[in-house]
């Protein structure tokens, strides 16, 4: 496996300014609501430099929710290709991490890390399990992933 590390000032700036793009790969909307929760006054991730952006070209982190359905595979891979590197892929929720209750179902092509790594074996993937994960858990996952960049 290729491990790409970002060094020096690039790493310093990247860790303080993470723009995230939200990818729904067949989620039930529960994790999505928890992500939106992060932007509200209670958690306010903008104080850490995190911003939700509308285009994967602007993004430093992809927040992928959902199990990764067969319909979603191509889209998730395309979005990953369009994201400017270095970037981190976050698997948010039990489904994205390992299939959750849908594991082995007919429509499932995931989990998400396998879908992403079939495009780029060196992709940096972080996992935040939970159904749905608490906003605190997502925050702590983001912090740990950034420390590993």
């Amino acid at each position, binding site marked *: 496996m290729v491990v790409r590390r970002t060094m020096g000032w690039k790493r310093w700036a990247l860790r303080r300014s993470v723009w995230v793009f939200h990818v729904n790969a067949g989620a039930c909307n529960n994790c999505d609501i928890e992500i939106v929760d992060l932007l509200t006054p209670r958690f306010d991730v903008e*104080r850490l430099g995190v911003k939700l952006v*509308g285009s994967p070209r*602007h993004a430093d982190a992809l927040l992928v929710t959902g199990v990764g359905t067969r319909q979603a595979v191509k889209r998730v891979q395309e979005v990953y290709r369009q994201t*400017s590197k270095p970037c981190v892929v976050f698997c948010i929720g039990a489904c994205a991490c390992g299939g959750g209750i849908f594991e082995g179902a007919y429509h499932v092509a995931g989990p998400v890390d396998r879908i992403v790594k079939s495009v780029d074996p060196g992709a940096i993937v972080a996992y935040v399990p939970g159904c749905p994960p608490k906003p605190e858990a997502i925050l702590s996952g983001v912090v740990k992933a950034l420390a590993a960049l």
Partner: protein
Amino acid sequence: MSTGLHYLVWVLVFPGFLFTLALGLAVSWLVRKVSALVQWRMGPPLAQPLVDIMKLLGKEALIPEEAHLGVFVLAPVVGLSGVLLLAVMLWRSLVSETAFVGDVIVALYLMVLPSLALILGSSASASPHAAMGTSREMKLVLSYELPLALALVVVLIKAVPAGDPAPSLSLAALARHAPVLSLSGLLAFLASLLSLQAKLGFIPFDMAESETELAGGVLMEYSGVLLALWKVMQALMLVALPLFLVVVFMGGIDLSGWSMLWGVAKLVLVWVLMILIKNTNPRVRIDQAMRFFWVYCGTGLGIAVVLAMIGRQYGVPWL
């Protein structure tokens, strides 16, 4: 110091690129911080806009396969240099009288350049979302240029005394008058404040960049260094455009002694007004924006022009 070097320092360091950029980044932090406070959030730290740009410089710049490479790459450079020139011209009008006649017209042209560059760059990116953003940006430019030009007509009528055989139309000459203190000048000021809101891509006129439906619109396909250039351009605009309003409408900034604070207060007032409008309005549709600028602002400014003419003819300064 030789004259050439002197001008180079003027353009690149103070009060040109570096100074304006530092000020612009501070103001863009202010915009985000105040928006956060209005929404009962904490908001980003002071260095956030700078860190954002540093991060973008360190990222990969992707260029879409079907994009027109030259235009796509050069558009942000063109926009940036236009705004930089505008900023330097405006700062210079504050300190020296040695401007060429009619540089206010050049300033008006330079103010269109960023929008024009945005239109060129996004239409070169071969993306349907960016194309939607382009068409909205074009309609927006068509909408707000009319009120802006009319507002400038009001300013010129107020600034040129009746019977002056050789009127000076330079920015430095305009900076000696404060037309905002008259009825027609106030109307013109309000209309151009809203036009500049549209130029900056601020709510209620951010439909060209709308993140929620167009995924970033005109800027959608830009990443890395090129996106950083656009962000730098927007930071410079955040200083240059309010400065234009202060110079043209509010009597400029007097740089001698304590009266400088009064000038800075004018600039801060324009920023505060812009941030308040941004935070208390929803985004309007493009047809609503066109109707607003042409019908309402246009009519208001028509009245303002007539009032200014009457005031000039009969010597009533408050009209």
